């Protein structure tokens, strides 16, 4: 098989309009998900749901999105055999190269889809929240090509540690609003974006950046990110004739992870591993591991695992990676955890930074610190998998983004001068 046959237009279209299980019509995955949002936004959520249902099955929309993914975003993305890392890990590791996408991360997949939806809905203004800035940069990019006004909310602390991405967004014509309330990070940026949306909903669409939030966002973002796993599965079949033993991704809100996992959910032999940000260690209390270190509650419109105190107040999250520094997780991950289909484990800052350096020096790839959590996780699970299977395991790791934006953080961590 060549790329041309594997990645036909029909292949792309099938990744958006897949037939597999959806949440119930109100967005529930069992007890999880749903819509915990003010009544004022119900009409907008209903409008978005309807526009999305219509569009995802519309050949014209599918063709348009496929065109942009192919000719602009650089899809399909490569699946790179990581030979020296594999030797180190004792596993055959393949990297899904979302870092090579235009704008430098997997976020462009979702944003192109949502921006095209916005255009179909006749709205002229988009808002977005961003943590590391990757979703903000992708949103600013899509706003530029589709001529939309774009406002990005970003926690003040994140604007400081991701200053390069703030400059990129402004260069692309977006307005970046630093959010100084609460913990001054991603969760507060989401609060501010929701306040904007409820005020300006008539002409504004909210480009939600992760597979979390109220229904239909978890489904929409999942379906637009799903191309990651759909491609990776076909690429590995093409390369080896078989499925991987495991797939691994980092999990903050969880969009790159659900994008990788979803195509493999029906493949029972494939283990799904999500690696949460363990910060200084879950036992230290300074982490962003909502599933492994949190409890079920409601945050930002959905019932899911969140970090909260005994009175339901959201606890601040901690991670060296701004993109994983969020005290919640998408409801579908919570559900995959509850059902046991996927396994979630924390990876500490130190483990992630070790893996970051290892990937740089063995493969010549500087990953986003977010993605380094997935690499560290794969290194951790490889020995046990090898023993269990009695052979070298095959693991696909989602390299969700590139590390240019993290140079200041990484240099400071390793004590280098920049």
């Amino acid at each position, binding site marked *: 098989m060549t790329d041309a046959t594997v990645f036909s237009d029909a292949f792309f279209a099938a990744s958006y309009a897949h037939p597999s299980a959806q949440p119930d019509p*109100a967005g529930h995955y069992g007890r999880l998900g*749903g*819509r*915990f*949002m*003010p*009544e*004022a*936004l*119900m*009409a*907008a959520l209903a409008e978005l749901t309807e526009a999305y249902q219509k569009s995802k099955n519309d050949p014209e929309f599918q063709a348009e999105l496929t065109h942009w993914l192919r000719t602009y975003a650089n899809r399909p993305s490569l699946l790179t055999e990581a030979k020296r890392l594999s030797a180190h890990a004792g596993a055959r590791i393949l990297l899904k190269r979302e870092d090579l996408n235009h704008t430098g991360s997997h976020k462009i997949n979702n944003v192109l889809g949502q921006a095209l939806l916005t255009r179909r809905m006749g709205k002229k203004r988009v808002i977005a929240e961003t943590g590391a800035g990757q979703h903000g940069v992708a949103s600013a990019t899509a706003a530029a090509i589709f001529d939309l006004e774009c406002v990005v909310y970003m926690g003040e602390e994140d604007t400081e540690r991701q200053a390069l991405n703030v400059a990129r967004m402004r260069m692309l014509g977006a307005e970046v609003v630093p959010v100084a*309330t*609460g913990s001054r990070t991603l*969760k*507060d940026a989401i*609060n501010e974006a*929701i*306040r904007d949306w*409820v*005020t*300006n*909903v*008539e002409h504004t669409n909210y480009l939600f950046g992760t597979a979390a939030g109220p229904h239909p966002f978890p489904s929409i973002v999942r379906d637009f990110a799903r191309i990651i796993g759909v491609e990776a599965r076909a690429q590995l079949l093409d390369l080896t004739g078989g499925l991987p033993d495991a797939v691994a991704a980092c999990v903050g809100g969880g969009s790159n992870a659900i994008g990788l996992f979803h195509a493999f959910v029906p493949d029972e032999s494939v283990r799904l591993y999500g690696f949460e940000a363990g910060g200084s260690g879950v036992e230290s209390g300074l982490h962003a591991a909502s599933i492994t270190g949190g409890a079920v*509650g*409601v*945050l*930002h*419109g959905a019932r899911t695992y*969140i970090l*909260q105190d*005994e*009175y*339901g*107040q*959201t606890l601040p999250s901690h991670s060296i990676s701004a993109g994983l520094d969020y005290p919640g997780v998408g409801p579908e991950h919570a559900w995959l955890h509850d059902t046991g289909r996927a396994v979630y484990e924390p990876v500490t800052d130190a483990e992630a930074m070790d893996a970051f350096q290892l990937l740089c020096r063995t493969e010549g790839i500087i990953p986003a610190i977010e993605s380094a959590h997935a690499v560290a996780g794969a290194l951790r699970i490889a020995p046990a998998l090898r023993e269990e299977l009695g052979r070298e395991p095959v693991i696909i790791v989602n390299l969700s983004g590139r590390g240019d934006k993290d140079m200041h953080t990484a240099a400071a961590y390793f004590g280098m001068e920049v």
Partner: protein
Amino acid sequence: MSKLSAVLAAAKAENRAALIGYLPAGFPTVEGSIAACKAMIDGGVDIVEIGLPYSDPQMDGPVIQQAVQVALDAGVNTLDVLRVVEGVAATGAPTLVMSYWNPIERFGADRFAKQLAAAGGAGTILPDLIPEEADDWIAAADAHALDRVFLVAQTSTPERITLTTGVCRGFVYAASLMGVTGTRDAVSGNAKGLVERTKAATDVPVCVGLGVSNGVQAAEVAGFADGVIVGSAFVRRLLEAPDEASGLAAVRELARELAAGVRSGRR
């Protein structure tokens, strides 16, 4: 008839709208918030809403955010909120808790309803809980004879207004404008239309909130609504006061102005 319904009916019998005042628990202190609510009642507020301070107040503007942050920084929790309810309800004024949903889910819906009823509370207003997600709360509120207020908005469809008013008890909260809490220069021109659409669907009283900050606006809204809800304007009086005594005086003064407003709206 619940105490809340009786107070709304009494206002109606006087051919006026009821005045509903909001203040967050624990601002400036737990005791200070009880005193501030009593000052509102002294000035003529009929019904009190006690805000439960929450870390992620998505529906609140800068004024209420600032006050709530003071309470959170001081460690005010759900038990403190119930203490404030007890202190305020002791005056005889119907006292509701206004809260985002997660603190109540975490406390336990039934446990919260039971303790709220025991504190003399009249019920709840839960701005991020829609009827479709409210089964647990409706059951808990019923079990402890609490009123339950849900919200309708300018963008609500007729179907959603019917659904929402169908589960309201006490009153229906009509969010008169699209946006977060905070004072506005003018009452939304569409507020009257929303009240009319809501009244077409229910006999439950309809009270209007969001944006009312002075006696003139209160009079205007009282012309067509069963109750006028004021929050940020009270909080602002406390935030701007140089000391606690002048804050209480300013709250009492605003309540008097608003109380005169709701009595002049239908003349």
